[in-house]
């Protein structure tokens, strides 16, 4: 049975159902109890599972990550929440030097099955320290998996898969997606990590987008369809490990690729996607240079217009896709 729920409700349902199924799953984070988390994802879970499994922590991000690691090493399945992705900087030592290394560095003798959930992205007027998209720092860290769902269906299935995965998983949520709706099955299901999805099939141009940009790119595809441009939209869903084959096959089919993400362009995930395509057999099928559309290389500004002007909007994607489809960049 499926029904329409929001992305936020899908995340909560994944946590709730997995906690009912598996006693080892615990939650750790700031204000996740009575308050329900800064965005409300964990609302009501304290009442159902109690303080032993829904642990309100002090404002100590480093120790949230560290506590998740230690708990994972003795058999629990912790899910930590970092209130804003910007604050993951405070937890980075534990995630980068500890969680990502322990399995390898100790010769595979122990593992760290944990999830860190965190909301990323701009568009809320929260300015430079509450709006960043820092996922690529962790893509660049062997030992961590990075997941970034776009739809409610993906949010639920990927979160369940992330909790069951034996590795540390960074689970990136986008604030502007929390209230978006979609069909979601009532039962538990997993979407395997490392599987991309073609969100809209097309033959003229491939757009590879992540998180909120997938949603915008689908809108763009519908608009351009009216102009006779048939756009294929692909969501990698898992940034690491990346399902390279789905991307490559699409580019072989369309011969043109536009990469869209919110994080700033320099050093962003788009560079990795472009590299994967350029190194692959799809290179020989490219009819135009690979195009990257990404956030400007600036901190997120406060002013509403400046903020919107910092990251790709629907109009920006239309313009880039149209130019590319017409063969000119």
């Amino acid at each position: 049975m499926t029904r329409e729920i929001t992305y936020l409700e899908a995340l909560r349902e994944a946590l709730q159902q997995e906690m009912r199924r598996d006693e080892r799953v615990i939650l750790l984070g700031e204000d996740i109890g009575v308050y329900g988390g800064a965005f409300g994802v964990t609302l009501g879970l304290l009442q159902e599972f109690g303080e032993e499994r829904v642990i309100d922590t002090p404002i100590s991000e480093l120790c949230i990550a560290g506590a998740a690691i230690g708990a994972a090493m003795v058999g629990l399945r912790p899910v930590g929440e970092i209130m804003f992705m910007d604050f993951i900087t405070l937890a980075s030592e534990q995630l980068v030097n500890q969680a990502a290394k322990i399995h390898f560095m100790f010769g595979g003798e122990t593992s760290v099955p944990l999830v860190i959930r965190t909301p990323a992205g701009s568009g809320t007027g929260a300015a430079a320290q509450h709006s960043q998209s820092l996922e690529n720092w962790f893509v660049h860290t062997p030992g961590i998996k990075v997941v970034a769902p776009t739809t409610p269906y993906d949010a639920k299935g990927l979160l369940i898969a992330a909790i069951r995965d034996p590795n540390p998983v960074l689970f990136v949520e986008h604030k502007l997606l929390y209230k978006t709706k979609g069909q979601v099955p009532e039962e538990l299901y997993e979407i395997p990590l490392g599987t991309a999805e073609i969100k809209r099939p097309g033959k003229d141009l491939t757009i590879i987008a992540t998180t909120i940009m997938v949603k915008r790119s689908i809108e763009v595809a519908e608009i351009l369809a009216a102009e006779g441009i048939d756009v294929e939209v692909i969501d990698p869903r898992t940034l690491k490990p990346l399902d390279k084959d789905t991307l490559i096959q699409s580019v072989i089919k369309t011969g043109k690729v536009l990469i869209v993400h919110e994080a700033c362009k320099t050093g962003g995930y788009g560079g990795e996607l472009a590299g994967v395509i350029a190194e692959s057999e799809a290179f020989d099928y490219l009819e135009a240079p690979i195009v990257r559309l990404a956030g400007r290389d600036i901190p997120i500004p406060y002013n509403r217009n400046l903020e919107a002007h910092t990251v790709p909007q629907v109009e920006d994607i239309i313009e880039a896709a149209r130019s590319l489809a017409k063969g000119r960049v």
Partner: protein
Amino acid sequence: MPEKMDKRLKLQMLEMMTSIRAFEEKAEELYTLGKIHGTMHLSIGMEASAVGSVFSLHPEDLILSTHRGHGHCIAKGADLKLMMAELLGKECGYCHGRGGSMHIADIKGGNLGANGVVAGGIPIAVGVGLGLKKEKRDRIVMCFFGDGAANEGAFHEALNMAAIYRLPVVFVCENNQYAMSLPFYKGFAIEKISDRAAAYGMPGVTVDGNDLLDVYATVGQAVELARSGGGPSLVETLTYRWRGHSKSDANRYRTRDEIEAWKKKCPINRFSSHLLNTGIPQAEIDDVCAAASSAIDEAVAYAEACPEPDLEQIERGVYA
């Protein structure tokens, strides 16, 4: 308590300290010969802190160790052969040659790992404590760190969190007087690191870390408190490392006289004298030391015979 301790336990503790000393002296020799590469952090002179602390645990308890962790690992019961093989970077070492001296871990033996980041293990202890509290088997975790680590933010976050959840954790701060080159008095405006425990609402006590029986008794009280549900404690063991911080250290920040003065407070000699004074014959003490020494030679022979890791397997274990 010390007077009631049986002779066998005392001799085991002496053997353990001697074994740690012999292991590290041998490791240093192998480093000098170029058989061990990278670096290492020796705890020579600090053996009573490791042995006194770990001997107050049950075998099923857990520890988290530091970059200066050979002593903790050996005291927890590690196999010297697998340790030496790891220092030599061999496939049959504890971490299959992926960790080395700085990341020695003996997971099955309850050592959840040394740590290359100062204070890196302290937040992890909080999570281990959460897990152990939930399993309700009365196990505890002992978390070692040095004086330098007490000035990291991780120390503050972790001790606070361990205290508010009353976790079964014993924090053992081995104050060996120097955070690399920074002397204690330049890194702290307080007299004792254990005074900080009060700020977190847990007991804090400082002991002579070169007095094995004092460490054993004091840490033992903290262990019992943790095991009985009384929450965490902070124990500071005052000690001294005879060697440099690592192999790159030229000892520019301290005097030869200071080092020699601390060598006179050698924890092994001190405990041996105590044993002699309590009527244990010199011959028995000598036998224990000889046994420890021959075990090291066997470990080296084993390690040298082990194969190198297979280059084809270089990417093994990045993900579980």
